């Protein structure tokens, strides 16, 4: 054994958890890693068919498949799964806590990195599929899209961490958070742009920071769409608050969680 710096220990641990998660997450399925792409693809096809059946696929600035692609994949990949993976980190980390160098925070880090990477890879694969079908899925302003996506990703990770910490105090939090996912899908402007929502309801819906992220991503993706409500300052402030709360609750409770 030779002594390592704190940083290199953490780097080794995060990498080890990363590999372990990647193996154990998909090896139990018959089709393995194909599910990565297949699952969001099936959901997208379902929604595209629904939109098509309604006879009104587009909102004037893009075609239905591209619209679903930009918003649904972002919401699912960055918000829903990052948040859920972080919130359930406590259960997944149970066996890992036998080693002193492994901390719950490393599990959060590894899972967040995995979800971010998966989002990029799955997005790219589906985009190539769309190109093959003759659509144009590329964002008009890729750097801004990536920037907004990063903020949404951070928001998801910190909200997940926070609910994991609160869940260690009261298990009910886990129930509440999983109940929240479905309504949020409909309240975050995933299947519609805010421009078609009546002005009266803007006041209620814009409390939701995810909605701002979705609108900002959409704005950056389609140069001919301008969101009536998107506010980057609000999204950024919400993310920062969430992150600060998550970090401080982690600092307060991690020893207790380890002992459980």
């Amino acid at each position, binding site marked *: 054994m030779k002594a390592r710096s704190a940083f290199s220990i953490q780097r080794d641990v995060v990498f080890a958890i990363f590999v372990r998660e990647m193996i154990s997450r998909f090896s139990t399925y018959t089709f393995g890693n194909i599910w990565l792409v297949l699952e969001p693809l099936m959901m997208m096809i379902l929604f595209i068919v629904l939109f098509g059946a309604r006879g009104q696929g587009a909102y004037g600035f893009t075609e239905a498949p591209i619209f679903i692609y930009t918003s649904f994949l972002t919401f699912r990949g960055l918000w829903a799964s990052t948040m859920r993976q972080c919130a359930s980190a406590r259960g997944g980390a149970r066996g890992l*806590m036998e*080693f002193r160098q492994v901390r719950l925070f490393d599990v959060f880090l590894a899972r967040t990195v995995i979800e971010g990477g998966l989002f990029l890879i799955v997005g790219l694969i589906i985009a190539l599929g769309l190109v093959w079908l003759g659509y144009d899925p590329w964002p008009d302003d890729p750097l801004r899209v990536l920037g907004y996506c990063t903020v949404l990703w951070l928001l998801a990770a910190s909200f997940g961490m926070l609910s994991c910490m609160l869940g260690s105090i009261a298990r009910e939090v886990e129930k509440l958070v999983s109940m929240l996912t479905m309504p949020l899908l409909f309240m975050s402007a995933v299947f519609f742009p805010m421009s078609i929502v009546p002005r009266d309801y803007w006041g209620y819906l814009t409390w939701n920071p995810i909605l701002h992220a979705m609108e900002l991503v959409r704005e950056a993706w389609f140069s001919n769409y301008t969101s009536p409500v998107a506010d980057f300052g609000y999204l950024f402030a919400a993310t920062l608050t969430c992150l600060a709360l998550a970090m401080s609750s982690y600092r307060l409770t991690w020893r207790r969680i*380890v002992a459980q």
Partner: protein
Amino acid sequence: MIRFNDVSKYFPTRFGPKYVLKNINLDIPDDRDVAILGKNGAGKSTLLRLLGGVDFPNEGRIQSNRFISWPLALTSGFQGTLTGRENVRFICRIHGVKSNRATEEFVKDFSELGGSFELPVSSYSSGMKSKYSFAVSMAFDFDTYLIDEIMAVGDAGFKKKCENAIGNKRENSNIILVSHNMNLLRRQCNAAILLAYGRAEFYESVEQAIFRYECL
């Protein structure tokens, strides 16, 4: 030297805090193999977990400058869905060991698992599991090994192998052993800690500690 400074540990229960260890002051010398004695619930495993850094004292501090192994118990942190080899790789990675392959082969040989080494750990019987986790810990060079009841399992041949392996490690490391098998403690250790009534006492002689323990 591992030093306990006024260490207290309690578990919150609905009847209020239940102290397992209270105001422990203790020095564990580097060159002694220490047996930990105590009745069920006296805090033997808790002491081992505190030493292993996977649990923390509510008051006080534990100071040490040694590489201490993880607490080696039957339910060590192996993921059931991963194979024996993959679990070894994981442990190599978190310990910063780059030569995965040599460690994997060592564990495969030592644990006598053969083909089962490539199967998920959850499919192992408890005897196989104990062999496996013992082999894994022997693959790393720690200064202090924490062993919790694990040598009691396994067949006679393997027990002998374990004791030999520990004997080889003894040149530059020591062990801290929890067991209810007095003969094993007599053979393996040359000092003892007796846990009783929330206190801990260090004994230079194992015989004396065992005598005191049997009189409790």
